[in-house]
């Protein structure tokens, strides 16, 4: 799972049935200042996150299928938590 910031929303009216009734959000992975920034991606929302929230994203298909309780869901990235705080060793 990775830490990411929700930076945008995606609206799709025509989409695969597995994506119905959930929102798609644009997320940007967080990193340390001296690291090269990671590229953004799209994740399915399972937690009612919004723009500006720091979230926990599962980026693995089998985990996503468990979260969605659909053994054939064609989803890789799912937002599974909203982060309150992060502590990093000094």
């Amino acid at each position: 799972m990775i830490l990411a910031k929700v930076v945008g929303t995606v609206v799709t009216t025509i989409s695969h049935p597995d994506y119905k009734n959930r929102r798609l959000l644009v997320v940007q992975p967080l990193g340390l200042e001296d690291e090269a920034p990671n590229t953004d991606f799209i994740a399915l929302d399972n937690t009612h996150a919004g723009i500006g929230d720091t979230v926990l994203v599962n980026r693995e298909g089998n985990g996503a299928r468990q979260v969605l309780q659909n053994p054939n869901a064609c989803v890789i990235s799912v937002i599974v938590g909203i982060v309150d705080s992060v502590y990093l060793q000094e």
Partner: protein
Amino acid sequence: MLLGIVKGNAVCTMKYPGTQGLKLLVVQPVNKHLQPLGGLQVAADTVQAGEGDLCVMVRAREAALALPDEKFVPIDLALVGIVDELEVRSDESFKLTLQRGWNPYS
């Protein structure tokens, strides 16, 4: 999952069994600002997208799961949604780096 813009279509007469009848589209993967990411790729279409459409795509094993009938086929990129509206805040709106020590977010 990632965004891509449809640039054209690809036609194959010889295809792996199970992939007959699939529409193949040439897509350019893009980032949130719609800037190109790498080169052109070919994706299987499940949503009847057309040239110029901005789409949501899925990679890896899940691309084959997105197909309507056959689920065990050699497909590694599929279109799963057509984007009507994309709202992205500028990079300056958020702090995108983690600091040492406590990072409170709420």
